[in-house]
């Protein structure tokens, strides 16, 4: 290991913020955060603190990781009940269905019903277009797990859409 491997940090923190803030907040939204801007603020604060004590070479990866962790933490308290609904409930009455926000597509509703890790994998893959290895790093799982999450997630989405037809 050599200190030369330390990559220079050229951008100021403010510059980094303005370059990445919109993307980070949108990632939090797509992962299901109730307050994406709050999650984004937390991510940048942690980045700021991290840069005071260490070299963060992959800023984008670091922010992705923090956002995934932060959204996961905030959802953890409710994730079981969400999954319970996923398994145990039937389709809502037609009257309730009509009242839903019509701007949200069937596919995004189906995405919302996936297990959190499947959703994370799909968003990182199909919105951020991250390579599988990087998704594995962000999610802290093995490469095979990422492949499985994506494969099952897509299959599940396809099934949900089929059911809605």
């Amino acid at each position, binding site marked *: 290991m050599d200190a030369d491997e330390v990559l220079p940090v050229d951008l100021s923190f403010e510059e980094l913020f303005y370059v990445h803030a919109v993307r980070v907040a949108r990632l939090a939204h797509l992962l299901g955060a109730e307050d994406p801007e709050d999650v984004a603020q937390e991510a940048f604060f942690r980045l700021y603190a991290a840069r005071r004590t*260490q070299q963060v070479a992959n800023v984008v990866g670091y922010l992705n990781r923090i956002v995934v962790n932060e959204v996961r933490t905030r959802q953890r308290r409710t994730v079981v009940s969400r999954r319970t609904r996923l398994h145990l409930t039937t389709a809502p009455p037609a009257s309730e269905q009509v009242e839903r926000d019509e701007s949200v597509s069937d596919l995004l509703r189906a995405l919302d019903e996936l297990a959190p890790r499947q959703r994370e994998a799909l968003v990182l893959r199909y919105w951020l277009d991250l390579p599988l290895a990087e998704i594995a790093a962000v999610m*802290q799982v093995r490469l095979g797990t990422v492949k499985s999450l994506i494969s099952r997630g*897509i299959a599940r989405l396809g099934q949900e859409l089929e059911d809605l037809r």
Partner: protein
Amino acid sequence: MNQTESRLTDELRAEAARVDVDVDRMWSAVQGRTVEPSPSVRRPWGRVLAPYAAAAAVAAVLVAVAVNLSGNDGTTATPGPTSEPGTAVKPSQPVGGPVDGAIGDWACPYRTVVNPGIDMFSGSPPPFKPVRVLLDPSVVPAEALGYGVPRYNFSLSGAKGVLDYGDSAGQRISRTELTKTAKGWLVVRRTVCSGQGGKPSPDPVKLGTYTPKPLAFNKNAAQVKATPITGTPVLLDDRSYYDGTGMLRQTTLYAFPVKGGYQFARVPAEDGSFDSSVIPEGRIAGDAGVPITGAGPEAIFADYTLSVGWVFSYLTRDADVTGIGVKHPSNDSAGPAQRFTFPGGRTLYTAVPTSRQDGDALVTVHRKSGDEAPARF
């Protein structure tokens, strides 16, 4: 790319574009936190470490501590006197922050070697690799402050250096090897206390009394205030685990009755994350412990989140229900189960999975009239 994938890509892009981000407001909010003096780095930890600090203060009065200054630096996994979970849990943080001083032999018989850029528990590389952490031996490591490590000690010789962390008794809980570079002292790797077999806890799913004394229910926790308690809380689960610095920690889970159902409360409280909704009767629910591990920037070795695993639960007054059970399709094992009496003639059934893998738990409500179909979690 099949039709579903193409559609997902398009709709994610469209949905993301619909999010209107107020960047300037966010920047003002971030600045509000980043312009604070250096103690802000400790902010996320101050809240959760308070119970440990208080307990340490009591322990300091009651326990005469003999500091072992022998300086044995062996790093192999050899059995010996221990503060291993299951035999003792010593709150070890002093009130006044890390003390720079000599640190003795290992406090634990089992250790794990970890490398920068590798997540301690998953073994996966973090996304921000390569992280090349440089430490300044002239100041207290931010990580030690953040985690509340009681003691630290730098010893430097030529191009090699060592950063030891110690518990309140002065015994070593982790050793970090350093090498001198043109830019400063670079972290090479760490040997850290861990559970038997190198796991963070020797039995992370054992139900019931696992540590000498469960942490007391906290009526002032945000979760309890959000869903006011209407009866006596019941102790569901109590576990100990090592964090990324080698600190031995404890987490205790309670369920408490509230109007319309029940809620969970974990001690130490996670006041930054609570749920004001009530868990009603007749629904499988659960809590996944998220202990205070290195989720913040203080973590040198990885920004990992360690869950101690789920505790599933089911509240009912239906006499036909006899309990709930958890099985794992991957290994066909079953987790331990308990039952607790709740006010109003209700019973709270719990079960603990032996696997911590998402989607690997089949939870079944057992009935005299025949089991319900299992739900996968």
